[in-house]
């Protein structure tokens, strides 16, 4: 009985690492994030999945002007968006984490930072993780209950 209980505790301890979610955003208290209306998403060089386009699309869906690419930052944008994605493998490949930053176009200074981290058992599609991160950064509230990008 004691051995079974110990075994169960060990299994639970090991599995607990498989279901961790972190959704976090913070912004420079001296910057009014609500004043940002136009964004340029700069492609993360190692990204081969076109996530810069996903981020730009999600920003547009949230009501902002957004474009993306690898070229120079267009004149007049309020913020440059940079990101870094991390992936892991558990039966299938999945996005473990995405970090998104809003930067001052002139100085490259980070004015806001968002992070979504989901381990294997709570994995979600990149579109979902990107949208929940942007919502957190822009104060747009939680993901809608009927969000179609859940898997």
């Amino acid at each position: 009985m004691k051995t079974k209980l110990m075994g169960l505790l060990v299994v639970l301890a090991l599995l607990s690492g498989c279901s961790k979610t972190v959704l976090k955003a913070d912004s420079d208290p001296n910057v009014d994030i609500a004043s940002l209306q136009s964004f340029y998403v700069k492609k993360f060089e190692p990204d081969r999945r076109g996530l810069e386009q996903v981020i730009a699309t999600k920003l547009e869906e949230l009501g902002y002007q957004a474009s993306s690419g690898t070229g120079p930052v267009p004149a007049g944008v309020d913020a440059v968006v940079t990101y870094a994605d991390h992936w892991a493998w558990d039966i299938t490949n999945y996005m473990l984490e995405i970090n998104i930053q809003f930067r001052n176009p002139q100085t490259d200074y980070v004015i806001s930072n968002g992070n979504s981290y989901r381990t294997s058992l709570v994995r979600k599609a990149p579109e979902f993780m990107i949208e929940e991160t942007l919502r957190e950064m822009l104060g747009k509230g939680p993901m809608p209950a009927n969000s179609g990008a859940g898997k």
Partner: protein
Amino acid sequence: MWRTAIVLMCAVLAGCAAGNRYNYRDHAVSLPIRAEGQRILVLTVEDLRPYVLNGDKPANFVGLQRGGFGNPFDVTTASGQSLTQDMKASISNSLRNAGYTVIANPTEPDMSQLKQVAAQNDASRIVWLKVKDWKSDIYVSIGLSYDLHLAVYNAQGILLAENTQQGDSTVGGGKLSASQNSEHMAQEFSKRIGYLFNSPSIRDAL
């Protein structure tokens, strides 16, 4: 048999958690300021972390990395130097990139001595960062407790502006390698220092 099992268990629990080192020194800080004309600053960073001052942890301690069952291991600086030395190097380089001439104070900060250094180098400002807390705690997620105080004085030691950043929260998910955790923490440091410098009064004073 039991001895082998215990040794194996210890090895598994320690895993990648033991002996981790984070590189704060070589990470550029994202600063919102640019020097206008020739500006000379004296920079000093003071370690006021209570667990370092009371000798519980060494000056190069930066936080904890937890093993399989939450067992903690100390994380130290990659350089082996104190955390405040690494922070000073990082901030100095970033201020230089922003156009300032920086005199990094090599000794324990003391205002009368800082005023002397400022006078000897024709510096117009003294920038003093007090690190009251900076400790990461990494298991499945990354926790960070921090308490930073930045003050800008003129060459005569009169306070011109100050700003603080403090908190204790989860700042991300634990990474698969020590080098990724190191990078994440260096970025977190860069961001917090940037926020400190972006206060209007600090920017005006510099």
